[in-house]
């Protein structure tokens, strides 16, 4: 016997939402609109809204995305851009090595977050734009990996047999890759796919290369999870019911399987995105990702780890550092909340 604890939660518990057999049809007819049921997604949403941490984290995350989206607007209002070389424009603010002479990294009413040692960019706008670049790339990678994960994972799980075997082997193989090393080694190759090494490397090419490279070694874990989910789903009787009714495989994948892998995708997505943010930053930190003067989170870390900053005023380090911590923490908390909203049984 299935104990009620095993059934989807909130189901028996909903009280009001349980349709009692003896309910009189007439009474029900009164409020036709009310009878439109709440989908699992809606339930999840309701549960999520009740989770205070989750909601706050969501606001923080949204805040970051807004910052990214609105960076041009904000910097226009603020009146500066991240490309102006203040070390040459306002040499009095810097020493000859490019270190801001004012304490605390040159923070002032004019430069809210101070000035970057070296060329003296405005840190505030640089951070805004940096967030924009990093988030843009990470979102793109996440989308790409999710699509690939769905395509390969669901295919492997649903078709099984040989297809499954080979896709799984490919996943195993890629998982044995020394990922970071591969990133570093393949970035120039991928860039050279787009432009001959002697032509200009536009920023978008680097961005695309970053996306491609991270995508290439990023989709496996989701693919694996979706394969597992699909395998489990395939055993679920409603899939068999569809088969018995003669539904073609494509319809089964589309109508029966895909809607049911939304949950793991969302949950995994919320874990993957911050990982891609840090991975992208890592690559830029190592100098194979986004480079000056394109503002980027990782590139700011790279700058922050130069002798110039570490020896002199370390204020600059904190802007990319703290903002990233806030973002990642918020996103991880959001991820936990999303997972809990979908699956409140799991203990924390």
């Amino acid at each position, binding site marked *: 016997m299935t104990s009620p604890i095993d059934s989807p939660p909130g189901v028996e518990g909903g009280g009001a939402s349980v349709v009692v057999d003896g309910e009189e049809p007439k009474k029900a007819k009164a409020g036709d609109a009310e009878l439109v049921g709440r989908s699992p997604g809606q339930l999840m949403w309701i549960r999520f809204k009740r989770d205070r941490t989750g909601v706050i984290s969501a606001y923080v995350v949204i805040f970051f995305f807004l910052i990214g989206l609105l960076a041009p607007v904000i910097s226009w209002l603020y009146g500066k851009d991240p490309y102006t070389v203040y070390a*040459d424009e306002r040499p009095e603010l810097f020493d*000859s090595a490019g270190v801001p002479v004012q304490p605390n990294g040159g923070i002032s009413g004019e430069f809210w977050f101070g000035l970057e040692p070296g060329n003296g960019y405005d840190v505030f706008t640089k951070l805004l734009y940096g967030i924009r670049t990093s988030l843009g790339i990470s979102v793109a990678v996440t989308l790409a990996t999710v699509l690939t994960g769905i395509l390969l994972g669901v295919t492997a799980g649903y078709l099984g047999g040989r297809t499954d075997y080979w896709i799984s082997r490919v996943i195993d193989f890629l998982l044995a890759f020394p990922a970071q090393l591969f990133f570093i080694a393949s970035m120039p190759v991928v860039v050279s796919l787009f432009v001959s090494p002697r032509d*200009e490397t536009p920023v978008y090419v680097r961005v695309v290369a970053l996306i491609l490279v991270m995508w290439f070694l990023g989709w496996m874990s989701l693919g694996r999870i979706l394969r597992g989910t699909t395998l489990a789903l395939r055993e679920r009787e409603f899939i068999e019911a569809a088969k018995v009714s003669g539904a073609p495989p494509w319809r089964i994948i589309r109508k029966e399987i895909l809607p049911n892998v939304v949950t793991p995708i969302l949950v995994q997505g919320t874990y993957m995105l911050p990982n891609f943010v840090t991975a992208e930053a890592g690559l830029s930190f190592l100098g194979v990702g986004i480079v000056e*003067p394109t503002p980027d989170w990782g590139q700011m870390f790279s700058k922050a780890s130069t002798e*110039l900053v570490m*020896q002199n005023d370390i204020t600059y380090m904190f802007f990319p550092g703290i903002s990233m911590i806030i973002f990642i923490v918020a996103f991880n908390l959001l991820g936990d909340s999303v997972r809990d909203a979908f699956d409140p049984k799991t203990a924390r």
Partner: protein
Amino acid sequence: SEGGSKGSTNDKEQKENAERQQASIKFGDAAASKGPAAEVPGAKPGGTISVLARDSYAHLDPGQIYVQDEMAVSQLLHRGLTGYKATSNDGKKHEVVGDLATDSGTTTDGGKTWKYTLKDGIKFEDGSPITSADVRHTFERQFASFINQGPPYIQQWLADTPGADYRKLLPDGPFKGKHLPDSILQTPDEKTIVFKFKKPHPDLPYALAMTGYAIVSQKGDTKEKYDKDPVVTGPYKIQEFKSGKSMVLVRNENWDPDTDPLRHQYVDRFNITFNQQYEDSTKALLADSGSDRTGVSFSNAVDAGNLSKVLNDPKLKSRTVGGYQPYVGQMNINLAHPEMKDIKVRKAIAYALPVTPFVRAYGGTDAMEVAGGIISPTVSGYDPSFDPWGKKKKPAGDPAKAKKLLEEAGKTGMKLTFGYINTPEGQQYSTAMAAGLEKAGFDVQRQEIPAETYYDQVSKLDNNYDIFHTAWGADWPSASTVIPPLYDGRAIAEGAQNYSQVNDSKVNSEIDRINKITDPVKAAEEWNKLNEYLVKDVVNVVPTAYYKQTQIAGSKIGGLVYDDIIAGVDPRRLYVK
């Protein structure tokens, strides 16, 4: 702390030193070439010096050596036919004398034929005598393909071709039984070597003093493997070499001080440790404890972060030595590109280009000095007042003037492709330079070039960079190692150093003319004039900065001198106090 900002006090002093040096270097006679070298005041023998080095020595085969740190250690290991003898105790005054040879060389026909005679009693570390056969072998093996890192001068002179075509003269070197004919290189007896050039080369004594032409043992030549384990001739030999980690030098018992006018053998050993970044070595030497008290670095400079602190503390400063390096940074304007042929555009670039980014990226004014011309303060003929583009006054550029020029040329908004070296510094200065140029109305397209192949890329003839930065150092203190290789229009070749691909008939003819001048002082003057013509009228390059260096040593190190020729601490005269 405010990283290396305040104008340093020894600035003036250095300049004076450099000025003094404009007096040219004499070619010494047999008397001057006699060993032993004059005692360093206060020196005493014994002790161990620990040496902190950043990079492991990739090459120890003299034929492969062309980089400063390897050249520095080579002063202890390898000897050539000639060498620089310091005639003052401050490393500023030098004379070229015979090292293995009895004198700095004799020529009878204005520099076409040069004759050298080997001293008596000179031996390799294995005790075998050095003969003219070894000298012949040394020069012939320069043509073998595995020798590809060293200087090309003498090979080119012998083959009488510019560029890299000289290898056709003896494609496999001496290893397949072929030798250079007597019409080029003669070794009539055990002791005599005669070089015969088609054109006069009055600079040969300078060239022979380069480590790249130090003598290699014919018997002991192991070709590629020689690079790790050479047969040395200097006062020290390699006891142990762990590539990437450490190296130990000990006295070479087969070195006879009486044959050597240049070197001393005061200390018992040098313990060299690699992988010491500038800040590591600086920190260790500043701390001055334990073995670091007898510590020194041949090539590591005081790192940018500590520079001002060191220079502003008299106690610390007493342990430092410093000076100019022979390099001059310059922004090349690629004359092969039609758009660059317009002199107004070039002038606009010259006015607009901010040089501060470059100075900033490499540590500020303690490490870099805004340049006026292309002749460095270490080279004869340097003129500190020369500043045609006002860089010394307006190092951030003069966009207004540039803008006007560009407008006049009708090229406002023109594309300017800027190839930059893909290092953190390169990224930093190139972005700021681009910003400065854009203010003048250029549309700058930055293109990264991998650091490891940077010079290969920019020395390609059909590279598509309009501007790119290079630095060039004189191989010896004469502009003859600067202007001809860099600006001789006839030397334009794939991989050659005429980066800006300038081909100006006046420049070419002047080069030929000055090259023939045998009086070094006169020549220096003429070179300087040519420098002014190039920078001001041809505008194929915009000089950016002169390189400076400050080095520090432990308190027990004696004989510490910054040698302008070595461009670093002179290791030959060090002793333990």
